[in-house]
């Protein structure tokens, strides 16, 4: 029986079926979820503003 590999998001440690960066279930970097990816790439902020803007 083959060992079950599981991706864990490098940002939030959420379990993943596939990596949101490379679309692979066997991501060489261990995987990252979409939410953490857009934060890492500075496309989005985790908590943009505490104030109302």
């Amino acid at each position: 029986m083959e060992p079950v590999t599981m991706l864990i998001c490098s940002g939030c440690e959420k379990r993943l079926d596939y990596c949101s960066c490379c679309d692979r279930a066997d991501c060489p970097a261990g995987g990252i979820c979409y939410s953490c990816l857009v934060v890492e790439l500075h496309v989005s902020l985790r908590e943009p503003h505490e104030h109302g803007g």
Partner: protein
Amino acid sequence: MSPRAAWRLESLGFTEVYDYVAGKQDWLAAGLPREGEIAGLPRAADIARSDVPTCRLDERVGKVRERVHEAGWEECVVVNDERIVLGLLRAEELGEARDDEVVEDVMRPGPSTFRPHVHVEEMARFMSRHDLDSSPVTTSDGVLVGMLLRKDAEAAAHRLHQQFGAEHEQG
């Protein structure tokens, strides 16, 4: 903030003021003009190849493969009439599918895409870490801007480092 900023600008005498409701990130993601200290740094859209072959969902793989190879590529982006990215045919799919198969049946649906305003250094770092040779670049609305190749991102990042190194040495 932006509605108040717009009103403030009008109070200062500006007569043509607009509030871009979708926000700054969306503005940048659409590849619209930018200003500021780091505005000149290369972004994904600056080096993404807009000549990447495209095809439709209902095309036959054989014809697509022929067209892609003639253009000197090994992959193809599946788009609709609005140029929205629907899927991707990488070398594996193009190589393994039969000529008479339909693109929709063999493509990778909903591929990961990157926004045009991401810095090339970030892209090079991620593509290297995830062993990703290429990735489509799209606007927030999903419109294809081009295909970013890892070798292009790494070369651009390298040039940037050399440029900053030289400027640092000159003081």
